[in-house]
């Protein structure tokens, strides 16, 4: 059974006064198996964030369904949603979304505190993750005192500490310089190798070329997908950019 199944998702934004409507997603379906590392590529405004928000239960689809481990998250009751999100999903955002009132350590602890874990347990988990991410030295610093790369690592640590079913990352390299981006992508590969399922949306070819599978979204639909299999990063990069050129020049769909 796939860990995540997205079925015929449609999302129409209606402006507050009913007038304008924007169709962000028209019909999106795909599924992700446990342990996969999937990237969704698309231009700015193609509906990537919308899709991720729906998968994250932060937003409701106009129609369609999202199943996590076979369970529909669209039908989860409003008051259980936060707990569901906290227990099953880990988030990494483009702008990190760290809280400036918390130290790095407390930022990482936040989801566990929300889940009501004891300090001992939190500390136990923290030690392991922090070591892997190489942020042990900055635990007592505050977000504004550390670099962008370190902030993103903190955000990843915060996502990982709940041992989520799946990590959802929205343009995680978007606000980073290229060196920090490389580090981050390497990190994603490593955690994926440890068995962590990752779904990342991005418009960076370089970021996407590290994933094991890349899906392309255009006009609110999944347009095409590429499996990396045994390809090298360079080969994958080439293939992705070819596909993008094809999408832009309006070539026909290639199954």
């Amino acid at each position, binding site marked *: 059974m796939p860990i995540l199944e997205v079925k015929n998702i449609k999302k129409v934004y209606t402006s507050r006064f009913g007038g304008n409507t924007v169709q962000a997603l028209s019909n999106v379906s795909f599924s992700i198996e446990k342990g996969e590392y999937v990237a969704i590529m698309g231009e700015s405004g193609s509906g990537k964030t919308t899709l991720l928000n729906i998968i*994250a239960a*932060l937003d409701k689809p106009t129609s369609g369904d999202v199943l996590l481990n076979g369970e529909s998250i669209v039908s989860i009751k409003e*008051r259980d*949603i*936060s*707990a569901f*999100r*906290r*227990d099953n*999903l880990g*988030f990494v*955002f483009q702008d990190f*979304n*760290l*809280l*400036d*009132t*918390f130290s790095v350590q*407390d930022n990482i*602890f*936040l*989801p566990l*505190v*929300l*889940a*009501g874990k*004891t*300090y001992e347990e*939190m500390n136990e988990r923290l030690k392991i993750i922090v070591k892997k991410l190489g942020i042990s030295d900055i635990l007592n610093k*505050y977000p*504004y005192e550390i670099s962008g790369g370190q902030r993103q690592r903190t955000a990843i640590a*915060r996502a990982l500490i709940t041992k989520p079913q799946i990590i959802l990352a929205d343009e995680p390299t978007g606000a980073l310089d290229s060196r920090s981006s490389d580090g981050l992508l390497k990190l994603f590969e490593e955690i994926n190798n440890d068995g962590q399922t990752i779904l990342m949306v991005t418009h960076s070819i370089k970021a996407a070329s590290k994933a094991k599978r890349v899906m392309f979204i255009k006009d609110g639909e999944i347009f095409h997908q590429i499996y990396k299999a045994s390809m090298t990063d360079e080969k994958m990069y080439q293939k992705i950019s070819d596909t993008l050129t094809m999408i832009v020049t309006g070539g026909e769909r290639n199954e």
Partner: protein
Amino acid sequence: MSRFFYSKIAVNNIQKNSKTYIPYILACICTIVMFYNMSFLAAAKNIGNLSNSSSLRQVLIFGEKVIAIFSIIFLFYNNRFLVKRRKKEFGLFNILGMEKKHIAIVMLLEMIIIMIISITAGVLIGIILSKLIILLLFKIITFKVVFGFEIPIKSVIHTVILFSGIFGINLCYNIFQVHLSNPIELLKGTNAGEKEPKTKWIIAVIGVICLGRGYYISLTTKYPLAAVGGFFTAVILVIIGTYCLFIAGSIAILKMLRKNKKYYYKLNHFVSISSMIYRMKQNAAGLSNICILSTMVIVMLSTTISMYAGIEDVLRNRYPRNISVNAYNVSENQIKKLNDVIEKQTSILDTTPMNTVSYRYMYFITTQNRESFTIKEINNYIPSDAAELVFITIDDYNRMSNKSESLLKGETLLYTLNGNIDGDEINLNGFKFHIKKRLPSLYKEGRLTSIMANSYFLVVDDMDTIKEVQNALKGDNGNIEYVSYYYSFDVNAKRDIQIKLTQALKKELIRISPKIDIEGSESSRKDFFELYGGLFFLGIFLGILFIMAMVLAMYYKQILEGYDDKERYSIMKKIGMSCEKIRQIIKSQVLTVFFMPLIVAVIHLIFAFNILTKFLSMLNFTNVRLFVICTIITVCAFSVIYTVVYVLTAKTYYKIIRE
């Protein structure tokens, strides 16, 4: 770029920031209305028609000054808040190619627009309200109505000059602020205070010491006179202490709580403590302002209301009898004439003196050294070792208090009011008395009510002894003919007859000796109403002003925090905190932060209670029960207003969060 272009930007800016600017302009208008009205009262011709106009006028002029100082601080403080919020906007202008010079022009235009609106509206509304205000004042002090309508040009000019000045200073500050910073800083502007505050132990300790010292002074003040000096010292100490504790103490406590891992890593505590540590840095000053304003409002209202409500008590305290005559250094012959005059004048007005109290006495201001006293020349102030000695004879004492004590020469009955003499001996520059008995109480009236310094009342065997004491103390050797004489009585007559009698006595008695004072409770009543009514009025007036200031301070605090928290809570929501939980945490946090100043204010008040009663007793107000009741009512009423303001301003906060 044309002038027109700038003014368009300026108008646009004010509109765009209407959420902060409209309250600011309203506050400016209210402050101007208040100032104009106080200035108007201080200058109003109608006040001149009152009998005791000079003391009332003084109260009003004092009020005008207080409001002026308050306006400067208040408007400057709020202006600073506005600029801080708008730095980002100015940074953006700067980056988009607007020079600082041009930003300054925009700021100037904005300020001119705000100034013209505020001053015009403020003065106009002030003029319209002034009639109402003077009616109210007269209602309070004389229960009469006034006619006519006046617009003292002097007050209008004062108002315009003062507030133009305030706006000018604020403008300079704003331009200076923008001038100092570079665009990047300007862009960050609002978020500048992000660093976690350090624990400032020294300031926290200073705060504790100041507050402790202030409380100590208040609790240990025994004498009314000491209350005057002590009161102002205590007020200043408590203000400093409040600031220090809000600024440093709060952070120290929060950080200590954070150190306790078990406590800290509970969801509610986790979020509140961390954000309060962060927030205290920006808000400590605002919270202490609110706290101090609250304390001031409550103290001012409760004291002035008590005095006004207890005006009859005060009169009775100050004038135990309807009419009293105090003659200093008169001869026996003059005393006889005095008694005759009183008898004659009362019978002319068809009444007779009742409840008569009379005694002869002598008093000396001395320097006390344990049980020894030496004479002291008093200058302007009274040192702490000064002691007042008042002598009366055993005959007068027995008559006044219905006793039948007897004394031998060299024996005395001692009553002590403040002060202390150990042992059984008193040495008056060589003249010794044996204390036969200490009186637990003494009928007090006239000179016997002294409250100034340490006072001792000595009952001795006869007048000759008193004269010998005088010889001993002053070193005179001659035979002294003069004593002081006090005579007081009630009359069973209407108010106007009493006033007539007092005036007649004044005229007649002055012929006997210029050193005779006559006081009538009825003729003083008007003066008391004018003075205490004036203070009461001022109390209410300033109370309203301070409450307005508080409302604005709270409102701005809510907005500031609303924008700050908005982002924070949206992140927490994404990470998995339910809206319900968020709401709950916000609520408890906002409640704590908001009601802390009120709670601290009430604590201040409890500690201030002792010194306040002493202070009031100097103004002849000794009805502690009434004061307690008035204070409790004031505190309750104030808490209700505070809560209403909180509920209203909290709405803004929630609206911002939900946006």
